[in-house]
């Protein structure tokens, strides 16, 4: 299955990258841009017998490795093989 993990800086935590990108977008002339946050997007293939088991594994991966619980939030999606790629 395809697992997609989205890791974002937790609300309230300073996100210097997001700020730099926001400023840069503004100076490039993009109006009306705000609240830019820069996180990570991790994709992986997982051999799992069921979507439920894949979801459970993905959650553990996020908690143990993919996200830093001190400063980041995560979410993920699991796509069974028949679904096409994004």
């Amino acid at each position, binding site marked *: 299955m395809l697992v997609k993990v989205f890791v974002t*800086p937790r609300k*309230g935590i*300073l*996100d*210097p990258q997001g700020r*730099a990108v926001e400023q840069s977008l503004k100076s490039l002339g993009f109006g009306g841009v705000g609240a830019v946050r820069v996180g990570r997007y991790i994709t992986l293939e997982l051999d799992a017998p069921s979507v439920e088991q894949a979801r459970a594994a993905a959650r553990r991966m996020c908690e143990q490795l993919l996200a830093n619980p*001190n400063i980041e939030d995560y979410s993920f999606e699991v796509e069974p093989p028949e679904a096409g790629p994004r």
Partner: protein
Amino acid sequence: MTATKTAETPVALAGEPAVGLEQARAHGLSEDEYRAVERWLGRTPTFTELGVFSVMWSEHCSYKSSRRHLRMLPNKGPRVVGGAGENAGALEVGDGWVAVFKIESHNHPSFVEPYQGAATGVGGILRDIFTMGARPVASMDSLKFGAFDHPRTRHLLGGVVGGIGGYGNCVGVPTVAGEVMFDAAFNGNILVNAFCLGLARRDELQSARAQGPGNPVMYVGSATGRDGIHGASLLASAEFDASSEAKRPTVQVGDPFTEKLLIEACLEAMRSGAIVAIQDMGAAGLTSSSSEMAARGGLGIELDLDRIPLREAGLTPYEILLSESQERMLLVAQRGREAELAAIFARWDLHAVVVGKITEDQRWRVRWRGALVADIPAGALADQAPVYDRPAREPSKAPPRISSRPATAPAPPPAEALRRLLDSPNVGSKRWVYRQYDSMVQSNTMAGPGGDAAVLRIKGTHRGLALKVDSNPRACALDPYVGAAACVVEAARNVACAGARPIGLTNCLNYGNPERPEIMWQFIRGVEGIRDAALALETPVVSGNVSFYNETEGRAIPPTPTIAMLGVLEDAGRRVTQFFKRPGDAIILLRTAAPALAASEYAALFGCGAGALAALDLKRERALIEGLVAAADLGLIGSAHDVAEGGLAVALAECCFNPDGVLGAEIDGMPGGSGAEVFFGEGASAVVLSAAAGELEKLRGLFGGIEFSVIGRVAGEPRLRVAKVIDEDVRELMQIHEQAIVRRLAANG
């Protein structure tokens, strides 16, 4: 108008908790402290005021347990400039230059969140230096982790080293030296001490003393968020336990890019002459910087919180005042020159805003949405915190010797012991660590990490500066006095081995809970040890930092004073390195006392019988240092290397590891026999020199009263031979040394 103002009292805000003793206790204040707050105000504090007092009177900000003892430390000398009460001390280093330097702990934040904790530790100490008007030119770090195989160590090591590099590399300040130790005694409480050195022209030194009522107060740097509210200060002012997790504040995230802009912009703004006083917003952020600047000048300050740049909406006055958001500075400007300053900051894409003004009346007043929310005598916050003379008692039973086991299995033969020692992460190469640090930026690094002391040149002069940071928790655990004095001496000796004269030091005192008499005793003995050694070496203590409550679940770390020493080389071209240079040179051992296995790495690996630390004779230590400085100055020595972890055998091997081409050593015999303490003992001040045979007599004359033994000669063939006991291929030893940390990290990824 004035009349109504004085009559005004701060208001409680909607939704704020009621204030009383219980609330004060929840903020970490004792009953006596809370009563003192009431007396200072003549009324019940508002919730905001309570928060402010609790942070300013925390151990971390007020030094309430340590202050009276720190007065023991000598801080005068012909080179000492300016001073007391400013953010860091300064020393004249010649040709009109002054060196500003300080070391600070970031232990607790680094344990919680290693990368950001260590990164923000570097950021904080940098601001302490450039706020003085000095350009930061070098950093060092002193790190203590738990046992290498402890489950958390790898994660903490990677995070801390990554954070120090991530921040230091991005601000363009080279990290030129440091130390790393692994010991189970730090399993539950690591130490991360960060040092920064800055240079300024003497007349560029900047004050943190407010002047001129009516002068505007300006805020520069990052916007204020909820970061670390009650963070650094409270976390570092209480023991660490499971409930600390729940109290965990919003983790501070460092933004080194903004710090770099701040460095450049502040130094440029200072040159304009429009800045009266400036201070970084460190622990207790806006509150400490504003009240301290006012109190130093005997003045008051008024802040308007509605003008503080905020990162998110909805912050309360309490949160704004206690936020420990990073990369912020507060300054007092000359009235009428605000626009000029704002323009300089704007050039660096930084926003400088007026947030208040200096007043005559010595009060620290804060307004928010038109209402007065705090009105406190500035001095009550900044320098009238309670001072304690806490009970101190020597523990009745001998302290457990840390990481040292009784000798059970028979000790390995010397050659085998040497290999095992070189493979220990405490003795082995720290390249894995320092290769992650930019040690070259600014083009001053003549000797970077990997040797004894680092050496920097001062551009435009012939001078050089040598610096080194040292600590020895194992020795301090056995004897907190001798251990601390020995750290001072060791740091000085390292600097002298580079050929530099030690001129002053800074210290970071890492101890357990000061409310326990035996910890307080360790602390006082440590300060006494530093005092005596600093007096004997005439190296004034120009700055420092105290970190108490380094305990987890009631177990304190061993006492760990960390000493950073600065030395001056009149001619940087005369600097000496630790590596043997020429085959045929004589190898000389200098020693002030017989070495001992107590507190050694050998004892940690193989155990040893009971025993005391090696004797420490400060007069002889001074003579050794003087001799080294003179010998370097006369150009008599090819190399000089301090004998430290692993003892003489390890030191000899390290002298052979010349990166420009390995050499060997032919040692006829070890003076004092062939016992393990001779090969691997530590503690005694010992130095391995190499020199041309023709210089030996001149050299001997420089070291009167000190053991001076010619023990062998440098060999072209890369073998280390010691009498009939050791005969090893230097390249193999070097490989073991090089891989000590790397191979452990590679093992089970």
